[in-house]
C-alpha cells in the first residue's frame, strides 16, 4: 500500500510523539545490522571462539605462578 504524503502526515500527527533525546539510553552506541549479523555468524564466531580462548588461556597461564 502506498501511503500518500497527506495521509502520512495525518497518521504521524495522531501518534504520540516519543522524544528519545536527552535520556541516558539515547546516547550509547547501538549496533548496526551488520554488527548484529557478525555476532551470530557461525564461521566468524567460530574463529572468535578460538581467538578468545587463546586470549583467555594467556591470562590463565600468566595467573598461575
Amino acid at each position: 500500500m502506498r501511503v500518500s504524503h497527506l495521509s502520512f502526515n495525518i497518521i504521524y500527527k495522531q501518534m504520540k510523539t516519543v522524544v528519545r533525546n536527552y535520556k541516558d539510553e539515547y546516547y550509547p552506541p547501538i549496533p548496526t545490522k551488520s554488527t548484529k549479523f557478525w555476532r551470530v555468524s557461525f564461521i566468524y564466531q567460530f574463529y572468535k571462539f578460538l581467538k578468545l580462548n587463546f586470549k583467555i588461556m594467556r591470562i590463565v597461564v600468566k595467573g598461575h605462578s
Partner: protein
Amino acid sequence: MARVIVLGAGISGHTAASFLKKILGKKHEVIVISPNSYYQWVPSNIWVGVGKMSIDQVRFKLDKIYKKWKIDYKQAKAISINPEGNQDISKPFVSIQYVAGEKAGTLENVEYDYLVNATGPKLNFEATEGLGPDKNTVSVCSYDHASHAYTEFKKSVELMKQGKKQKFLIGTGHAMATCQGAAFEYALNIAYEIKKLKLSHLAEITWISNEYELGDFGMSGAFVKRGGYVMSTKIFTESIFAENNVNWIKRAGVYKVEPNKVYYETLAGEYKTVDFDFAMLIPGFAGQGIKAYDKTNQDITSKLFAANGFMLVDADYTPKDFEDWSIDDWPENYQSSAYNNIFAPGIAFAPPHSISKPTKSTNGTAIFPAPPRTGMPSGVTGKIVAQNIAHIIKSGKHEFKHTASMGRMGAACIISAGYSMTRGLGATMTVSPIVPDWEKYPQWGRDVNATVGEIGLAGHWIKLFLHYMFIHKAKGYPFWWLLPE
C-alpha cells in the same frame, strides 16, 4: 602424618582440597567440612534462573567424589576456631556442628595442623530491610535461589501473556553490594528470554546499581580496544543495555524493599523509590561469622577476622586514600596475619580495601561496590594455598613457592547475554591485572592488549564450554588436574 582441614567446598575450597590430596597422597589426611552436601558451579545459576538449566545440571553430590579421593567429608558448619587449642585440647581445633544425617545438631572439635578457611561469602540479606527470597525479592546466588527466581519469572511471563505490563528490576540490593557481573548477566538473560517470547513491548526492565558509572563492576571499570578506539566498559555496558531496552539507575544504595517497591538513596543525597513486579537484587556479602578463641577461651575473633567477618591475611590493611592504593596492598599467599598455619583463599579473605573508588552520599552513606572475587581468582588462590601447604608439610620449610596476587593476575569473565547454540550471546571480558596497577600501566591501569570486551555467539559457546569443563574438573574426571582454574 599431618592433618589439613578445609572449611567450605565451593570453587576455592574444593580446588584446595583436591590439590592437597593429590599432592599429599595417602601419607597425610585431608578433611573437608561444609554444610552443603553439593558442589555447585555457581556461574551457571544464571541459566537456572531463566529455566535454561536444571538444578541438577549445576550441582553434584560431594560425598561420592571425596570417597573416591579418600578425603574425609563432614557435612557440618564451622562455628569457631581455637588456633592455640584450649585447656583440654593441646592442638589447634575447629568446632563444628553437623547439619544433616544422624549427627545433625551434634557438636565436634576437629583438630588440625593446617586450616584452610574457604567459606566464601554469607549472603547478607538481613543488611537490607525486606530483601531476599524469603521476603520481597529473588536472588540467583545459589541454585535454590535461582530456581525460585525462575518460578517467579514465569509468573511475570504469564501476566505479560495476558497483556499485563511487568516491571523488572535487577541489580544490587545494598549500597555496598558487589557481584554486579552476575546481576548484569541475569538482566541480559531476562531481556533475551522476553524478546524470544515477543513480549518486550510489555516489559520495562531497569538496572539499579551502586556503581558510579555502569561497567564499573566493582573493579573500577576497565578499558578495552574496540573499533579503533580504547574505550571504557561504561560505554560497552550502556550500549548493551540500550540495545536491549534496559533503563538504568546508577549511584544508588538500596536500603529497604517493600512488596513491589524499592527504596534507595543516591550519591546526590536524594531518597527515591522505584516500583517493580519482579526484582532480582544481589545482597551485600559478609564473612560467615566464625568465632575465634585463644587457649584461655578469650574471644580473639577480631584478631583473625575483619569487622565484616572476612579473614585477615597477608594484605596491607593500613587505611589509605584512594590515590595511595597500590597493588602491593593485596595479599599474595593468603596466610592468616595472626596464625601461620591458617589460610583464607577465595572470597573468605578480607580485601585491604575496595577496587572501586569509595564514594559517600551527601548524607554520609557509603555507596560503592565492594571488590568482587570471581571464580578464577577463587580457584587460583585455592590451588596455590594447597600447593604451599603441601610444600611446607613435605619439605618442613615454611616458605611460599606459589603466589597469586589480584594485583598481578588477570581474570576472565564470560557474561551470558542469552542462551542458544545458534542465536545466543555472551560478552567475553578479560582484564589483566584484576586490580589496576597505575604504576605499571599509567594510562589505563591495566594492559589494554590483554583486556578484552567482545559480544557474540562465541561468548555463549565459551561460557557453556567452561560450564562442562569445570564440572568435569570438579568431579575429578580423567586429567582433571590439567585443566586450569
